[in-house]
């Protein structure tokens, strides 16, 4: 036995191994990400969209004016200006000192006193009554509920943080005001929340339906595939806008609304789902095409050999493989959905006030446009917000398509 020789061998082996450890396989996703990063417009769009999402989420915490507070006497159609403004200074609000913070302190002190009074009552029935009346008062008179519309518990907390940080300061009306004297900047920001949520939720619904439908049709093939795709063909010929108009008018009916609310379903939620439920057709066709070519692959066969159920194969082995193209379609479906929301809002069938969406703002703006005096800001700012978002989504979609294109691998 030659000891030094074997050590030499070992060393050589270690060296080799070390080298091989350094080499990393480039996964499809990493490769795509590398290519996407080189695509300037797509990266700019991605950053813009992430920023937009953050800002939309944090809207209640930003020092914006109230999106709802009307001032028909003094502030109708003000052009963009930098005139400073104090929260709660409108006379009609009758806030203490004309300030939100003073009114908030006053109101909270009053409520605290009333609660203490209620706690002192011995009769439990009367006490409950008293608490209820306090709750009612908060619902109507709380300064937040006067300036904002039905804040959820998270948004409520966020508005509290906003008041704690910024006090009565608010960004001046740099976007001008609308026909009821509401601040357009605040409305554009609050509208972003609704518009983005519509885009996302509806697209996710269409994603779930489209991907499972297409994957199942493609995997099973044969007559199942033929029948499922015939149905899609048929649905393509139905003018969906009309079905949507039917459904929206149907759901807008008072009794239906009440019935839905008794089940805790929001009308706006239904609206998202309807839009999502009609945008899945293209997605299902694309996914089916991909799955058809994938199902002959060996990994599917091996999964079948070890006894995986068809559903497991479809959702665990096939769907992840078509994710790339699905993501591309996702970025192209979101703008379509957002445009559709704007379109429905224009017809008066979309988001109902006091909720705000970009479509609704644009509709208001268009109405103001046709008058003799030119209130350009009521159209330009919401329009620019929507157009920039759709622009960014389109660029990102194009970039992703190029990045995820297998033909471009390692280039």
């Amino acid at each position, binding site marked *: 036995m030659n000891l030094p020789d074997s050590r030499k061998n070992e060393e050589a082996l270690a060296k080799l191994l070390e080298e091989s450890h350094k080499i990393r396989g480039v996964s499809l996703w990493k490769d795509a990400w590398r290519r996407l990063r080189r695509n300037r417009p797509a990266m700019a769009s991605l950053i813009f969209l992430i920023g937009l999402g953050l800002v939309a989420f944090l809207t209640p915490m930003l020092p914006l004016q109230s999106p709802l507070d009307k001032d028909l006497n003094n502030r109708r159609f003000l052009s963009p200006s930098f005139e400073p403004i104090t929260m709660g200074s409108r006379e009609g609000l009758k806030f203490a000192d004309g300030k939100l913070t003073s009114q908030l302190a006053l109101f909270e002190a009053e409520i605290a006193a009333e609660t203490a009074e209620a706690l002192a009552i011995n009769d439990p029935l009367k006490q409950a009554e008293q608490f209820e009346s306090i709750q009612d008062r908060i619902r109507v008179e709380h300064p937040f509920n006067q300036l904002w519309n039905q804040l959820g518990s998270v948004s409520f907390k966020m508005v509290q943080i906003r008041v704690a940080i910024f006090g009565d300061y608010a960004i001046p009306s740099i976007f001008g005001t609308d026909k009821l004297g509401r601040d357009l900047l605040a409305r554009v920001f609050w509208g972003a929340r609704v518009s983005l949520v519509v885009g996302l939720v509806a697209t996710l619904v269409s994603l779930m339906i489209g991907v499972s439908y297409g994957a199942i049709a493609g995997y099973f093939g044969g007559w199942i595939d033929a029948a499922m795709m015939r149905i899609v063909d048929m649905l393509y010929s139905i003018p969906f806008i009309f079905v949507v108009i039917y459904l929206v008018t149907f759901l807008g009916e008072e009794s239906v609304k009440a019935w839905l609310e008794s089940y805790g379903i929001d009308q706006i939620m239904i609206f998202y789902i309807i839009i999502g439920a009609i945008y899945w057709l293209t997605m299902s066709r694309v996914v089916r095409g991909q799955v058809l070519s994938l199902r002959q692959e060996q990994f599917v066969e091996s999964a079948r050999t070890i006894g995986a159920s068809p559903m497991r194969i479809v959702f665990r082995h096939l769907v992840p493989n078509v994710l790339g193209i699905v993501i591309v379609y996702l970025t192209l479906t979101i703008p379509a959905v957002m445009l559709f929301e704007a379109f429905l809002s224009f017809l008066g069938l979309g988001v109902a006030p006091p909720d705000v969406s970009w479509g609704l703002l644009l509709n208001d703006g268009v109405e103001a446009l046709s008058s003799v005096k030119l209130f350009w800001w009521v159209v330009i700012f919401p329009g620019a917000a*929507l157009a920039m978002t759709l622009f960014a989504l389109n660029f990102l979609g194009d970039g992703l398509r190029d990045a995820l294109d297998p033909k471009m691998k390692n280039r």
Partner: protein
Amino acid sequence: MKDLLGFLIRRLGWMAITLWAVYTVSFVLMRAAPGSPFSAERAMPPAIEQQMRARYNLDAPPLQQYWDYMWGILSRGDLSWSIKLEDYSVNQVIAEGFPVSASLAIFALVFAIILGVSAGVISAVYRGTVADVAMMATAVLGIAIPNFVLASIAILLFVFLIPLFPAAGWGTLRQVALPAICLGLPVAAYIARLTRAGMLESLSREHVRTAFAKGLPKRTVIIKHVLPGALLPVVSYLGPATAGVLTGSLVLEKIFALPGMGSHFIYAATQRDTTLATGMVLTYTVLLFVMNTIVDLAYAVIDPRVELE
């Protein structure tokens, strides 16, 4: 030829099934909604309401209504009377509105195809130049701006600021032009992008290289060898484009106050005019189906590899 006949017959069968499904769904939706078409601010005397119900066959049991109405359509092509528009039958409303909507849609589509294809070809041939970038940015903008905003701005610019077009009215070419352009622009933008992508792909094909190599002029190569291949995605997009134009015409007819079918439909659906709404949906479905069939035929003509199914 036999292929074609079989294809058309099969398509007709599918159209019948689709129409039946659409009819059933709209019937159920309209009847399921609470309230009746006659519920209004001012209550109607019961006797009159009964008369009205009898006139529109609304007092029959639902299944009977379903069959009666369907039988009326099938045997006489009769879509019954409109409930809200007095003394108008649905057929009359459609007969009046259809030419307006159809000519608007056709003008818009033709305009979109011409503009979109030429823009796409130019920007693909001069790829990377200022013209290409400018045109593609405009195209994305065209996709990103809702057409009602576009239309309002266009009215402001070309009717009031620079009086090129009349503000409203219907009949002359000048009156059709502005709404048709507004309706066609988003579609044109989409077609331009599709054409450009298709052109770029076929420009890199080998047969194109061969054509260039044997010394054909650039013009001939592009028109004869590149364009037909590049147009395939455009042709297959024409089906959805028709749907888009029909949908968009709802908005544009409202903005330009055109007496088309779209304005009637929204009115019918929101005012619960069941007969009118059903008639409109059926008409639109037929239109869309016919257009999809034509697109499939055109596809088979352009690309000999495609078989009619």
